[in-house]
C-alpha cells in the first residue's frame, strides 16, 4: 500500500492506459509503441494488486470536479473485483497486440476502451458511468470501424441506442431526484416511490431503459446481433478484451440496476410475482436463458472460428445474466464467479484465435488441421480454454457453472436449469469441434511451415491460462472474494472446497481423482492398448462413403444435420430483422425528404400557411 499512495490508485488505474495509448499513437515506431502500450496496460493491474488490501477492507474514493458535474469514483471490493479482472485481461491483450498489431491506431483505441472499462467499473455516479461507458464504446467501435464498415455500423447503431437509453434514464433519475450519485439517487427514488412522488410507470421506464442499455453491451438476445461481426472483424488480441471484459461492463450494469440501486430492486416486489418468482428478475432469467440457448445453437453451426467464439461468448454471458435473474445468493455468487472464469477462458480463446490467424492467415475450420505439433504451447493453452469453457473440472469454468446450476435448482427453476444443461451440452459440441478440427487430424499441406505463436502472445495466453487452473482447483479463493460484497450463501470450507446449501464441491479431490484416472488411462494406453499406428490421412471417415455434396467431415458442415433439423427456426433471424428495420428507416427517411423538401416553394408556402392557420384558430378560440 505504501508503494502507491492511496490518492493515486484510482487516477493511475483510470488514466494510464489512455495516456500511454495516446503516447503510443504519437510515437508510432516499432518497439517504442509496443513498450509504451504494454506499460500503459500493466499499470492498472499492478496498482490494483497493490491496492487489494485497502480496497477489500475499505474503500478508496476519488473525485474529479469538472465544475459542471463532480465525477465520483470508488474502489471497493466489488469494483476491485471487476476492475482487476478487466486489468488482467487488459495486460494479456496488450501482450497479444504487441504481436498482432503494428499500428498506433490500434493501441490508441484499444487502450482507450481499457480506460473506459475501468471507469465504468469504478464509477459511483451516473455521469462518470455514462462518460466512461461512451469512451469504452467509442474505442471499441473505432477498432471495428477500421476493419469493417457494415459491422461497425451495426455495432454503433445498437450501442448508440443503448447509450441514449441510458442517457434518457439518467435524465429521468436526475429530473426527479436532483442527484446523480448511485446511492443518493436510489434512496431518493425509493422514498419518492413510497410517497407517491414518482409513478410506477416512471420507475419502470427507467428500469427498462437501463436494462436496454446494458443488455446491448452484454449481448442479450435479441440485442446480440452486433456481437459476431464486431468480435470477429477485429484484431483478435483486442477481441480478447472486447469479448472478455467489455461484455462484463454490461453485466456490471445489470448488477448496478439490480443491487446497487435498491429502489430499482424495490420494483421487483412492486412488479409482483409469477409462479412464485419475482416477475422482474424472472424476466431477466429467461432473457439470459434464451440467450444461452439461441447463441449456443448458432455457435454450433458456425464454420468460422471467430464466429463460433463470438456466439459462444454471447451464450456464456447469457449464463451470467441468467444467474443474476435467478436472484438467490448461490446463483449470484455463481454469476460473479462466471464473470471471472468467462473473462479468463474467453480471453484465452481469442488470443489463441489471434495466434492462429497470425500464423496461418486462415479463419475457417475447413482450412485448419493438425496444428498441435506445429504450435504445441498454443495447443496446451487451447486445451485449458476448451476444458474450462466446456465446464470440465478442475477448471474455473466448471466451478462457476456448477454454482449457477445449484442456484437455479434451489430457486425452483427447473426449466432455466434445463437451459443451462442444454447450453453446456452444446458448448461441449462446439468446443470439441474446435479442438479436433484445428489441432488434430490431417494437416493441409499449406500449413506445413507454420511456426509457434510469437513470445508476447504466448505470455498473454499464459497470464490468462493460469487463473483458469488456479481458480478451478481453488474455487474458494474466488468465492471468498465474492463473499466480501455479496451475501452469497456459499460456504468456503477451504481454498479447495466450497459448499452451497445443497452440495459441496471439493476441487482438490476431484482433481486428484482426475489425475489418477488419467494416469491409469495413460498407462493402459502406453502398455496395454492394442493400438495400431495409422496415417492421419484416413482417420475420420468412419467407414462412410464420402461424397462432395454431403461431406460431413469435422472440418466442414459437421453439424449440418442439426442445421437441417433446426431449419424452421433458422428461417427467423434477428440479423435479417434488423436489416429490414434499417432499410425501412432509410426508405422512410427518403420518403420524408422527398415529400417534405420537395423543392417547390409553393408547397413551402403552404406549410407556412398551415402553421398560420393553427395559430389563427388558437388565437381566436
Amino acid at each position, binding site marked *: 500500500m505504501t508503494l502507491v499512495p492511496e490518492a493515486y490508485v484510482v487516477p493511475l488505474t483510470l488514466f494510464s492506459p489512455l495516456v500511454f495509448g495516446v503516447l503510443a499513437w504519437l510515437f508510432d515506431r516499432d518497439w517504442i509503441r509496443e513498450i509504451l502500450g504494454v506499460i500503459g496496460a500493466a499499470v492498472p493491474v499492478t496498482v490494483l494488486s497493490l491496492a487489494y488490501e485497502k480496497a477489500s477492507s475499505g474503500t478508496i474514493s476519488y473525485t474529479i470536479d469538472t465544475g459542471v458535474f463532480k465525477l465520483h469514483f470508488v474502489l471497493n471490493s466489488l469494483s476491485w473485483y471487476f476492475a482487476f479482472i478487466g486489468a488482467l485481461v487488459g495486460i494479456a491483450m496488450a501482450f497479444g497486440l504487441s504481436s498482432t498489431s503494428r499500428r498506433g491506431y490500434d493501441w490508441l483505441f484499444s487502450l482507450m476502451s481499457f480506460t473506459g472499462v475501468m471507469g465504468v467499473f469504478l464509477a459511483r455516479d451516473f455521469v462518470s458511468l455514462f462518460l466512461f461507458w461512451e469512451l469504452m464504446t467509442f474505442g471499441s467501435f473505432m477498432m471495428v470501424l477500421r476493419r469493417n464498415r457494415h459491422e461497425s455500423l451495426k455495432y454503433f447503431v445498437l450501442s448508440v441506442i443503448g447509450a441514449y437509453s441510458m442517457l434518457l434514464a439518467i435524465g429521468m433519475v436526475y429530473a426527479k431526484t436532483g442527484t446523480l450519485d448511485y446511492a443518493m439517487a436510489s434512496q431518493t427514488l425509493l422514498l419518492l416511490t413510497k410517497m407517491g412522488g414518482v409513478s410506477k410507470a416512471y420507475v419502470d421506464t427507467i428500469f427498462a431503459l437501463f436494462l436496454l442499455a446494458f443488455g446491448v453491451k452484454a449481448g442479450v438476445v435479441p440485442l446480440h446481433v452486433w456481437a459476431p461481426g464486431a468480435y470477429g472483424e477485429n484484431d483478435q488480441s483486442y477481441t480478447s478484451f472486447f469479448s472478455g471484459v467489455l461484455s462484463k461492463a454490461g453485466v456490471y450494469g445489470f448488477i448496478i440496476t439490480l443491487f446497487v440501486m435498491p429502489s430499482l430492486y424495490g420494483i421487483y416486489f412492486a412488479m409482483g410475482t409469477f409462479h412464485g418468482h419475482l416477475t422482474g428478475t424472472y424476466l431477466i432469467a429467461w432473457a439470459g436463458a434464451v440467450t444461452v440457448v439461441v447463441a449456443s445453437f448458432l455457435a454450433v453451426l458456425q464454420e468460422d472460428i471467430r464466429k463460433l467464439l463470438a456466439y459462444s461468448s454471447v451464450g456464456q454471458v447469457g449464463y451470467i445474466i441468467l444467474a443474476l435473474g435467478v436472484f438467490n445468493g448461490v446463483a449470484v455468487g455463481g454469476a460473479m464467479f462466471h464473470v471471472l472464469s468467462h473473462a479468463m477462458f474467453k480471453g484465452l480463446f481469442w488470443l489463441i484465435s489471434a495466434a492462429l490467424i497470425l500464423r496461418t492467415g486462415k479463419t475457417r475450420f475447413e482450412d485448419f488441421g493438425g496444428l498441435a505439433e506445429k504450435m504445441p504451447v498454443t495447443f496446451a493453452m487451447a486445451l485449458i480454454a476448451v476444458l474450462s469453457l466446456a465446464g470440465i473440472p478442475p477448471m474455473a469454468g466448471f466451478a462457476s457453472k456448477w454454482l449457477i446450476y445449484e442456484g437455479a435448482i434451489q430457486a425452483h427453476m427447473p426449466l432455466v436449469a434445463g437451459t443451462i444443461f442444454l447450453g453446456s451440452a452444446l458448448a461441449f459440441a462446439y468446443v470439441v469441434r474446435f479442438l479436433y478440427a484445428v489441432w488434430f487430424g490431417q494437416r493441409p499441406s499449406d500449413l506445413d511451415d507454420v511456426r509457434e505463436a510469437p513470445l508476447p502472445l504466448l505470455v498473454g495466453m499464459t497470464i490468462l491460462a493460469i487463473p483458469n487452473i488456479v481458480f478451478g482447483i481453488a474455487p474458494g479463493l474466488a468465492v471468498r472474494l465474492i463473499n466480501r460484497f455479496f451475501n452469497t450463501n456459499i460456504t468456503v470450507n477451504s481454498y479447495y472446497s466450497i459448499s452451497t446449501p445443497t452440495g459441496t464441491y471439493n476441487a482438490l479431490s476431484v482433481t486428484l481423482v482426475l489425475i489418477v484416472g488419467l494416469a491409469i488411462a495413460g498407462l493402459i494406453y502406453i502398455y496395454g492398448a492394442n493400438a495400431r499406428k495409422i496415417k492421419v490421412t484416413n482417420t475420420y471417415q468412419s467407414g462412410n462413403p464420402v461424397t462432395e455434396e454431403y461431406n460431413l467431415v469435422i472440418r466442414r458442415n459437421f453439424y449440418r444435420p442439426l442445421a437441417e433439423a433446426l431449419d424452421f427456426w433458422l428461417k427467423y433471424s434477428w440479423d435479417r430483422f434488423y436489416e429490414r428495420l434499417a432499410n425501412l428507416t432509410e426508405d422512410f427517411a427518403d420518403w420524408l*425528404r422527398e415529400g417534405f423538401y*420537395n*423543392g417547390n416553394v409553393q408547397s413551402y408556402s403552404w406549410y407556412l400557411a398551415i402553421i398560420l392557420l393553427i395559430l389563427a384558430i388558437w388565437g381566436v378560440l
Partner: protein
Amino acid sequence: MSVPHIGLYYFGALSLVLVGIYGVLVKKNLLKILISLSIVETGVNLLLISVGYITGRSAPILSEGIGPKQAVDPIPQALVLTAIVIGVATTAMALSVAITLYEKYGTLNIEEIRRLRG
C-alpha cells in the same frame, strides 16, 4: 371630411394581406408570387398606419396649426416609412433573382424551378 369607422381600415388591410397570401399559395408564376408578396406588404403597412390613426386628426407633420395635439400618432408612420424601404429592397432583390432564374432555367414557373430538393 368624415372618415369611415377604423374597423374598415383593418378590414381592408387584412383583405390585402389575404389576397397576397392567396396569390403566393396559388399562382405558379414567380413574378405573380412576388407581386403578391408586395401586396401583403402593402396590407401590412396599411394596417400599421391604421393602428396609429386617431379619428379626426391630421398627418403628423409639424406645420402651422398642427401641433402634437392635432396630429395622429407619428410612430407608426415612421415605422411604415422604414417598412416601405425594406419592402422595396426586398422586391428589388427578388426581381434581380428572378432575372437570374429566367436566364438559367428559361422559365418562371416555380414548379419547374426545383433543382434543389430532398
